[in-house]
């Protein structure tokens, strides 16, 4: 039941992200959708996936928000500050409550760390390799001096 409610809110947030006129609102709605999906993954029992999703979502949200700010869009409308703060507090409380409840109910959390590491070492190595490759790709795209200048644009 809780999963269904979270999924409905996630769909509404996705619609808001797509149809919002301001990019800032779009990015914030997208962040809400991603965090709700993260909690949904926790509720469905995919703890590793929820952690990956949380890492992706936070990094992506911060990057997109900084980029949106760099594009110069005036994002905050006057008169909506109280509602914005209220929405932020509600989101943080709900997310923290769900996360705390679920992490508290994890079976044997923290007891089998060494065994987990031994069993999943190649898995972790693969994850690190993928992340390293992606970061190298992003660095190649974002390098300050490209070949296009030598070719004349």
């Amino acid at each position: 039941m809780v999963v269904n409610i979270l999924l409905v809110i996630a769909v509404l947030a996705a619609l808001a992200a797509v149809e919002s006129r301001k990019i800032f609102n779009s990015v914030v709605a997208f962040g809400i959708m991603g965090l709700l999906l993260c909690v949904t993954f926790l509720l469905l029992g995919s703890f590793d996936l929820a952690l990956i999703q949380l890492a992706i979502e936070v990094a992506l949200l911060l990057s997109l928000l900084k980029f949106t700010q760099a594009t110069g869009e005036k994002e905050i409308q006057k008169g909506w500050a109280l509602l914005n703060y209220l929405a932020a507090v509600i989101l943080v409380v709900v997310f923290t409550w769900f996360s705390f409840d679920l992490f508290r109910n994890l079976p044997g959390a923290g007891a089998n760390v060494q065994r987990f590491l031994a069993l999943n070492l190649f898995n972790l190595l693969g994850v690190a390799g993928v992340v390293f490759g992606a970061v190298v790709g992003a660095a190649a795209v974002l390098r300050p001096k490209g070949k296009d200048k030598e070719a004349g644009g």
Partner: protein
Amino acid sequence: MMTFFVAALLLSIGLYCVAVKRDLIKIAIGIIIMEYAITLFFVASAPWRGGEDYLAQVAALTGLATTIVIVALVRRLYGRYGTLDISQMRRLKG
């Protein structure tokens, strides 16, 4: 069953966003929404595959890699053209 429906809905929303919108950030958001939908589908279908969610982890990792590169590409394109409107990027060749 609701989860499958939501995954299909999210995939449709992302596809619509990529096909219709002209803003680069929204297009990136649409692609990432589609990635999330596919991950959600794999998570929801894990009980039918013996309860393992390795496919979902692989999908999430692929999504992580493509997301990083997509955001880098968006930043690069904005830095080069000074706009996020794809209809004004007329020098994309090769």
